[in-house]
C-alpha cells in the first residue's frame, strides 16, 4: 500500500547567530497554532537566560531546542527538526542532517551572509538538502535584502532567485510583493495573523514586473516547459510554481523570501513556500544497507505496507525516562508492534508512541513511512535502526571507528561526580564514537572520541545539561606500537618447582601485517602443539597486544606465525602455553624493530580562496602532508593528512587566520609512524613523572 505523504515536510531551520532563528521558530509555531502567545525573546525576564543560551550557541554551535516539533499549515504536516550547528564531523551531526528533507536558511538583512551561514550552507551542500532562504529583519536600520541575495550568489555560490520584493524597508517595511501571484501582501492584526492581499502599489509595479521577468528567466533555465510558455507568453501561476519547485528540489536555485519575524511580517508566505517548494518524503530517495548481503545499498520504499525500517536519530532524557525520536522510512511503526534492533539483534515491543508539539506531546497509534515521532521506554542507542524482525537492513553503516583522542575528567565534588556518571551513560548511548572508562592506574575517568571539538562539546553539555562542575586534563593521543621487520622466536616456558608443573614451547616468527590489527597463523605439523594449546597460544599473544613492551601502548599491525613447539605429557596446559606465548612475544618484539605509531587524520579545510596560502602553511607547520587543493571559485578545499597530536587548538588558529570564514572537518585516516625525534620526546615525557598527566 502506498501512502500519500506528499503533504509532509521534514525541515530544519538553520541560521547564523542573531539572524532570528528563535523568533522565527516561535512565529511559525504561533501561526500554526501550536503556541497561543508570542514570547518576546528579549523580554525582561528572559534577558539573562536568552543571552546565556545565545552565547553558548555562539561558542559551540549547539541548539537546545526539542529534537523535532510537529505543526500543521494548510493541510500540510510539518516537522521542524533541530539541526546541530557544530561543524566537526561526527556521527551525531550526520544523523541529524540525514533526517531532513529540506531546510530554511535564515539570514539577517543587515548582517548578510556571515561565517556561520557559510558553515551551515556547507553542511546543507554536503548532504544535498534543498533550501529556501528567508531574509529576516527587513525592518532594521540598514536592511538591504538585495545585497544579501547577491551575497547568497557570491559567498554561498547558490543561484538565489528572489520570489518577493519588499514594500518599504527599515521602519517603513510594511509587506511584500509576491512575484508569482503578482499581489501585495500585508500583515494585519496585533500579531500579523491576518494576511491582506492587495494589488501591487503603483510605485512598485514597474520594478515588480522587471523582477518577475528575471525570476522567469532564471527558473526557465531549468524547465523546458516554462521556457516554451515564456516564449509564447502564456505563463500561469501554477506553471511558474511547479518550475520553481522542480529547480529547488534539484538544488538548481535557492528561492529567496523576505520578512521580519519580530514584526510579524512575511512568516505565512514562508510557510506557504515550505509547503510549495520544499520536498516531501516522496521526493527524496532514501537508501540503507543490507547487513545480510555485505552492506549492499538498498533503496527504501515509501510504502506503509512494506516491512518496517526506522531510524532512532536522537535520544532525550525526559521526566518519564528516555524519549527516542524516530523517523520511519519504510512501513509503519505501530503501538504494540514487535520490532528488532539491527545492532543488538534483540526484539522489543513498542509501548507508547507520541508526536512532539512545541510544549506538549500527543499519543498516537502509529508512525507511517515519511513521518517522525517518538517512543517511550525503548532501550537503544542513537543511530539504531529498528526493522521488522529478520529484515537485517540498517540505516547506518555498522562500522564504528575507534576513538583517537582522550581526556581525563576531574569532577568537582560528589554531586558533580554523580551527574557526570549520568551524563556519560547517556552520551555513550547517543554516540557510539564517544567512549568512557576508568584508568586502572590513576583511577581517573577518561573520555575518548574522534577529535578535540568532539570531546569539548560533551564536556560543555555535562556542564550545561547536567550542572556538573568538571575540569579536564590535557588531551591524550591514542598512540600505538607496531613492528617493522620479521623476528623469530623460540621460547620454552618451564616451571617445575613445587606443585603442578608448567611446560610449553613455541617456535615461530612475527612480522608486520599491513591493514590488520592482529593475525594468527598456525603452520604446526604433526601435532607438535595440539589444537587446544594453539588456541591458548593465540590467547596469550592477544593478551600481549593490550600493552606493548616498547612504550606500553597497544600493539597493532602484527602477524604471528607458530611453526613448531613441544608439549609435556603432564605439565602442559592452557596456562603454560599462554605463558609461553607471552615469553615468545617479549623475546621477538624488540628484535622486530618496534616503533611508535600515531593517529593521522584526514583534515579537509574549506576556505575562501584568498586565505588558501595561509591555511596550507598552517597545515604544513603541523607536520601535515597536503594532498591537494581544489579551487571551487570563491572557495577552495584543501585536503591533507595531519597527525592528530598537532591538531590541538587548530580551530582557533584557523579562525584567526581566515577571519572565521573557513571551516574544517577532521576524521581518522590511519596510523602512521611517529618521526624519531617526536618519539624520543614522547619517551622522555613518559619517563618523566611530571609528564604523566600529559
Amino acid at each position, binding site marked *: 500500500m502506498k501512502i500519500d505523504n506528499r503533504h509532509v515536510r521534514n525541515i530544519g531551520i538553520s541560521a547564523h547567530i542573531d539572524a532570528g532563528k528563535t523568533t522565527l521558530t516561535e512565529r511559525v509555531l504561533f501561526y500554526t497554532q501550536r503556541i497561543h502567545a508570542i514570547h518576546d525573546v528579549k523580554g525582561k525576564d528572559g534577558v539573562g537566560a536568552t543571552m546565556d543560551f545565545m552565547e553558548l550557541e555562539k561558542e559551540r554551535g549547539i541548539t537546545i531546542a526539542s529534537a523535532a516539533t510537529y505543526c500543521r499549515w494548510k493541510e500540510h504536516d510539518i516537522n521542524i527538526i533541530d539541526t546541530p550547528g557544530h561543524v566537526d564531523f561526527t556521527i551525531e551531526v550526520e544523523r541529524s542532517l540525514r533526517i531532513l528533507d529540506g531546510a530554511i536558511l535564515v539570514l539577517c538583512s543587515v548582517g548578510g551572509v556571515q561565517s556561520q551561514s557559510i558553515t551551515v550552507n556547507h553542511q546543507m551542500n554536503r548532504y544535498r538538502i534543498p533550501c529556501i532562504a528567508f531574509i529576516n529583519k527587513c525592518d532594521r536600520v540598514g536592511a538591504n535584502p538585495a545585497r544579501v541575495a547577491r551575497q547568497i550568489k557570491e559567498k554561498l555560490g547558490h543561484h538565489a532567485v528572489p520570489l518577493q520584493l519588499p514594500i518599504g524597508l527599515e521602519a517603513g517595511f510594511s509587506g511584500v510583493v509576491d512575484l508569482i501571484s503578482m499581489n501585495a501582501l500585508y500583515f494585519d492584526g496585533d500579531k500579523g495573523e491576518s494576511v491582506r492581499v492587495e494589488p501591487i502599489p503603483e510605485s512598485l509595479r514597474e520594478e515588480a514586473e522587471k523582477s518577475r521577468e528575471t525570476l522567469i528567466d532564471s527558473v526557465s533555465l531549468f524547465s523546458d516547459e516554462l521556457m516554451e510558455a515564456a516564449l509564447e507568453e502564456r505563463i500561469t501561476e501554477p506553471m511558474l510554481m511547479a518550475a520553481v519547485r522542480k529547480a529547488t528540489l534539484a538544488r538548481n536555485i535557492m528561492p529567496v523570501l523576505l520578512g521580519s519575524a519580530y514584526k510579524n511580517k512575511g512568516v505565512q508566505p514562508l510557510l506557504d513556500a515550505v509547503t510549495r517548494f520544499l520536498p516531501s518524503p516522496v521526493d527524496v530517495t532514501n537508501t540503507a544497507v543490507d547487513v545480510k548481503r555485505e552492506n549492499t545499498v538498498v533503496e527504501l520504499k515509501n510504502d506503509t505496507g512494506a516491512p518496517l525500517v526506522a531510524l532512532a536519530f536522537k535520544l532525550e532524557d525526559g521526566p518519564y525516562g528516555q524519549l527516542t525520536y524516530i523517523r520511519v522510512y519504510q512501513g509503519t511503526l505501530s503501538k504494540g508492534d514487535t520490532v528488532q534492533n539491527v545492532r543488538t539483534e534483540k526484539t522489543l515491543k513498542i509501548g507508547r508512541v507520541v508526536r512532539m508539539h512545541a510544549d506538549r506531546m500527543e499519543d498516537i497509534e502509529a508512525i507511517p513511512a515519511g513521518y517522525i515521532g517518538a517512543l517511550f521506554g525503548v532501550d537503544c542507542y542513537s543511530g539504531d535502526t529498528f526493522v521488522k524482525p529478520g529484515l537485517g537492513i540498517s540505516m547506518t553503516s555498522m562500522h564504528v571507528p575507534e576513538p583517537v583522542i582522550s581526556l581525563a575528567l576531574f569532577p568537582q565534588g560528589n554531586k558533580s561526580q554523580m551527574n557526570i556518571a549520568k551524563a556519560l551513560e547517556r552520551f555513550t548511548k547517543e554516540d557510539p564514537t564517544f567512549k568512557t572508562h576508568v584508568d586502572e592506574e590513576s583511577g581517573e575517568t577518561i573520555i575518548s572520541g574522534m577529535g578535540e571539538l568532539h570531546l569539548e562539546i560533551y564536556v560543555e553539555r555535562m556542564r550545561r545539561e547536567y550542572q556538573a562542575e568538571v575540569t579536564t586534563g590535557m588531551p591524550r593521543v591514542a598512540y600505538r606500537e607496531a613492528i617493522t621487520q620479521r623476528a623469530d622466536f623460540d621460547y620454552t616456558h618451564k616451571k617445575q618447582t613445587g606443585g603442578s608443573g608448567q611446560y610449553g614451547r613455541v617456535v615461530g616468527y612475527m612480522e608486520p601485517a599491513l591493514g590488520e590489527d592482529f593475525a594468527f597463523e598456525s603452520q604446526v605439523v604433526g601435532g607438535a602443539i595440539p589444537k587446544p594449546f594453539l588456541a591458548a597460544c593465540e590467547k596469550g599473544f592477544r593478551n600481549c597486544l593490550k600493552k606493548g613492551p616498547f612504550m606500553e601502548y597497544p600493539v597493532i599491525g602484527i602477524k604471528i606465525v607458530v611453526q613448531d613447539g613441544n608439549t609435556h605429557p603432564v605439565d602442559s596446559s592452557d596456562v603454560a602455553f599462554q605463558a609461553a606465548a607471552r615469553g615468545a612475544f617479549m623475546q621477538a618484539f624488540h628484535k622486530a624493530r618496534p616503533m611508535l605509531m600515531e593517529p593521522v587524520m584526514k583534515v579537509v579545510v574549506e576556505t575562501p580562496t584568498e586565505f588558501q596560502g595561509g591555511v596550507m602553511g598552517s597545515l604544513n607547520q603541523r607536520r601535515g*602532508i597536503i594532498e591537494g587543493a581544489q579551487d571551487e571559485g570563491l572557495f577552495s578545499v584543501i*585536503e591533507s593528512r595531519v597527525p592528530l597530536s598537532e591538531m590541538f587548538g587548530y580551530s582557533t588558529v584557523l579562525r584567526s587566520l581566515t577571519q572565521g570564514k573557513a571551516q574544517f572537518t577532521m576524521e581518522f585516516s590511519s596510523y602512521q609512524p611517529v618521526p624519531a625525534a617526536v618519539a624520543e620526546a614522547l619517551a622522555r615525557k613518559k619517563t618523566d613523572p611530571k609528564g604523566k598527566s600529559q
Partner: protein
Amino acid sequence: MNTPLPPFANPLTHLGYEETKLLKPRAFSAVCARPGVGKTAFLVQMALWAMSRKKNVLHVSLGDPIKKVDLWYQDLFSHIARRSALPDAAAAWPTFLPRRFIMTFRVEGFSVPKLEERLADLVEQQIFTPHVIVIDGIESDSALHAFTAELQNLARKFLLPVWISVRIQEYPSTQEGHPPSTPLPESNASFESIVCIEGAADRIHVRGIKGGTPQALGTTLSLDPATLLLTTEKAS
C-alpha cells in the same frame, strides 16, 4: 618509513624519448587524444615514473576532484607495481605520496596567472617544491593556444618541465614513410615533444609525433585496455 622509492622504467623509451629530454627543465610536452581514450592514465604514468625518479610532481586537473585524481594514481600505481614485481607495494605507496601535490580547478576558473600564484605560494612557504608539472584536461588546441605563451613563461620561470593533455577531435593523417602531421596545428611550434593516443576501446596505441629519435619513427606503444598501462609493441 625509510623505504627507498622503487624506480619504474621510462614509459616512452621505445618511442625514442630519453629521460634527460622528458625531465629537462623548461621542456614543454603534450599528449593529445580524443575524449575517453586514456590521456589521464598516460599523464599519471608519466607522473609516477617521474616520482620514482625522485621528482616532485604537481598534478593540475581541470574538472576532476582531488579524490578522483588520487584514485587514478592508486589504481595505476598498483598495476605498475604488479608489472614491475614490486615486493611490497603497500609499503612503497606512502613513499610516493609526499612527492605528489594535486591542484584542481574548475575548467572555467582556470588561468595560468592563478596557477602561478598558487605555485609561488607553495614554493615560498616550502609546502611543496615541484620538479615536474602535469596539466590534465585542456579542452582543445585552440583553448591551449590561448595560454601557451603564459605556460611557457611559467615553465621558464620555475625551471620546470611541463606535460599537458589536450583533447582533440580529429587525428592527424599519416602517410607511410612520412612523419605524421601534428594534431596541434595552432600550438605545435611551442612543444618539444608531442605524443598522440589513437584507436578505439579494444585497441589503443600511442605514437610519437614530435621530439622522439628518428630511429624510433614508426614505433608505437599500446595502452592495455584492462589496466590502461603503456606496453611495448612494435608497429607492423
